[in-house]
């Protein structure tokens, strides 16, 4: 066991897989010698060689494109997209190609690749360093979309992703790299060193995707969250004085709808959180599925607390971010107190 922050856990997962399996290659913009703008691949080139971890041209479409060709040819590429905001030039290769190669060839070819990319706000990154585009990928059949909220999961899920025989989009909430973030930028940051989920086993282990992690057992309401919002949920529930079942979804597609509906059937109330733009965000799908599965148990309307339907502004970052206040207001609404 070692204490790691989330970047270290991710790097460790890559290191474990690169050591185990010479088919695992790591590449992306600035990931080679330098080790990535968030340092997730620092030291990997030095340790595993220039051919195992290298820089690419600034071309997200090209990065995904070569990953597909390599994956179809037996390798296990792990590509980094520097910020999720820059994934769109690669969107066609992801959605039309990686996700559908197995289908269109009826299983003759497939694309077992992993795309890692940082998501979310909280670093004053403005419109182009803060996005959470998960819902644009959960609509794509053939792709898996997952998002860890802590170092332990990050390592285990990344290993699962690399070993998965289908393409996986692995989203990394950048605001959590150094520690859990409870939603208030003005209180000093906590570090993973002080959190039990910063305990990361050495070597190989996996965390399955379709397996909700329950943060807290509660009876009053169910809170569905993923990524950064998991920690905001915890803080807000505490502040609101409610006894919440808080579920960290880990994987959005596939989704552990069984665990989710069990919880909502128990509590009768459901709050859904995400940082992304509200309309057609993944919260919509969660809301629809929960209502479909638990209609007769619901005692109040499901409430979504989300980012606004605007680009992510720079100066107004904390007015955009669905912080504790917005979440608490949401809790009150679900609890019928507002």
């Amino acid at each position, binding site marked *: 066991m070692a204490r790691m922050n989330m970047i270290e856990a991710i790097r460790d997962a890559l290191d474990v897989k690169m050591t185990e399996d010479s088919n695992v290659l790591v590449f992306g913009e600035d990931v080679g010698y330098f080790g990535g703008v968030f340092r997730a691949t620092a030291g990997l080139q030095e340790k595993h060689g220039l051919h195992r971890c290298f820089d690419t041209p600034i071309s997200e479409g090209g990065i995904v494109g070569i*990953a597909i060709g390599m994956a179809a040819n037996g390798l296990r590429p792990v590509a980094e997209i520097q910020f999720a905001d820059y994934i769109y030039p690669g969107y066609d290769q992801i959605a039309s190609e990686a996700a559908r190669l197995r289908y269109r060839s009826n299983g003759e070819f497939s694309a077992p690749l992993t795309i890692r990319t940082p998501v979310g706000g909280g670093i004053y990154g403005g419109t182009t360093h803060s996005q959470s585009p998960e819902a644009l990928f959960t609509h794509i059949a053939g792709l898996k979309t997952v998002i860890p909220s802590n170092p332990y999961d990050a390592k285990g899920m990344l290993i699962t992703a690399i070993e998965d025989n289908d393409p996986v989009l692995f989203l990394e909430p950048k605001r959590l790299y150094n520690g859990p973030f409870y939603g208030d930028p003005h209180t000093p940051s906590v570090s993973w060193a002080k959190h039990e989920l910063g305990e990361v086993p050495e070597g190989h282990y996996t965390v399955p995707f379709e397996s909700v992690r329950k943060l807290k057992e509660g009876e009053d309401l169910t809170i569905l969250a993923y990524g950064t919002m998991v920690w905001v949920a915890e803080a807000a529930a505490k502040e609101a004085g409610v006894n919440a079942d808080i579920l960290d979804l880990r994987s959005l597609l*596939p989704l552990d709808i069984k665990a989710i509906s069990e919880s909502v059937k128990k509590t009768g109330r459901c709050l859904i959180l995400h940082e992304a733009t509200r309309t057609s965000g993944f919260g919509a799908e969660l809301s629809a599925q929960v209502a479909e599965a638990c209609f007769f148990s619901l005692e109040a309307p499901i409430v979504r607390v989300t980012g606004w339907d605007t680009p992510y502004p720079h100066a107004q970052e904390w007015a955009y971010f669905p912080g504790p206040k917005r979440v608490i207001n949401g809790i009150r609404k679900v609890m019928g107190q507002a």
Partner: protein
Amino acid sequence: MTKKSNQSRLYVPEPPFRPGDTPDYSHIAVPVDHTPPRPDPMCEDHETAEHALKLIRVLRFNGEAAGDWVPKLTPDQMRKGLRDMMMTRAMDDRMFNMQRQGKMSFYMKSRGEEAVSVAHAMALRIDDMTFPTYRQQGILIHRGASIKEMMCQCLSNAGDRLQGKSIPVLYSFRDFGFFSVSGNLGTQMIQAVGWGMAEAYKNSDGIASAFTGEGATAEGDFHYALNFASTYRAPVILNVVNNQWAISSFQGIAAGEGETFAARGTGFGLATLRVDGNDFLAVYAATEWAAERARRGGGATLIEHFTYRKEGHSTSDDPSKYRPENEPEVWPFGDPIDRLKLHLIHIGEWDEDRHAAQEEACKVEIRNIYKEAEKMGTLSSDTQVNDFTMFEQVYEELPGHLKAQVEVFKEEL
């Protein structure tokens, strides 16, 4: 290049001829000494810069094979090439007619371009992975894939290896080095580079060869392919099949002021060849050169195959709407089958009678194969693909939500 105005004006290129015009292509008449010399395949890239602007040719119109690029092919090999082209054409004709009879939803012919696929395939190893578009069926025919299976794919019937998932012609034949064809233009170019990088990474000497139409070179994927192939010196051949047309758009829309598509590679330091795509021997020779270069670590070559799309874009298209009906005939580069035939006759290895007999034989063979294929169903008969297969191969294993959808689907049957 058209003369420039003396003021900036929105310029929109137009083809020289439209329906009603009498097409005259004498301006691209074919000079005998047009062919540039054959450099060593491991030459520096700039040694092929002029090749991007010229046109590698081997077959003269009198049937002679001449120049630096004459490949060492035996008469048997050439006869096999001829037959593969003729089979390809016979199959195209048959399938086109069957589509017209409603047996399948769609079909795409490759008439006029058979040398590009057949000769190219012949110059590769069978384990070199090709990344084709929808007009390289000749690769499969040359490599000996089952024509019946190809037809069953087009018919989406019980013999379709893709179980009806894809539209006709978007074949996938891994064992024949034929990558699953995508309906999205261009995407395969950069994937081929990734495939080639993987070969190099594994220290294998396999290579990849990708095809795009000249129209689709405008997609970003083409640029990515040139760039990544250049940066990582990937063992790939990037082929642009310039058949003059992209549906209704003449090549000038994609080419713009650029003189050739091969020249697109020059700025990337790739080797660049431009070849008469209707000349079987020239296509073979250029491919052989590029394959050697790639295999020996010399990196990628961009080959422009200069040819002509003799028929409509697909069964959904009517080319008389946008180009003169007789343009295919007056196109000055002849027909790839006729030209190889003439060469074989010229060297005394073929004659008109054998040719006529072979043409008939191909037709009959294709007809017979088709009949067998059709026995397995057609799209317009009761489709014999089990509808439930549509849920398979989305992922390796059926996830929970798809299992639930299978149940919902059962309710509606």
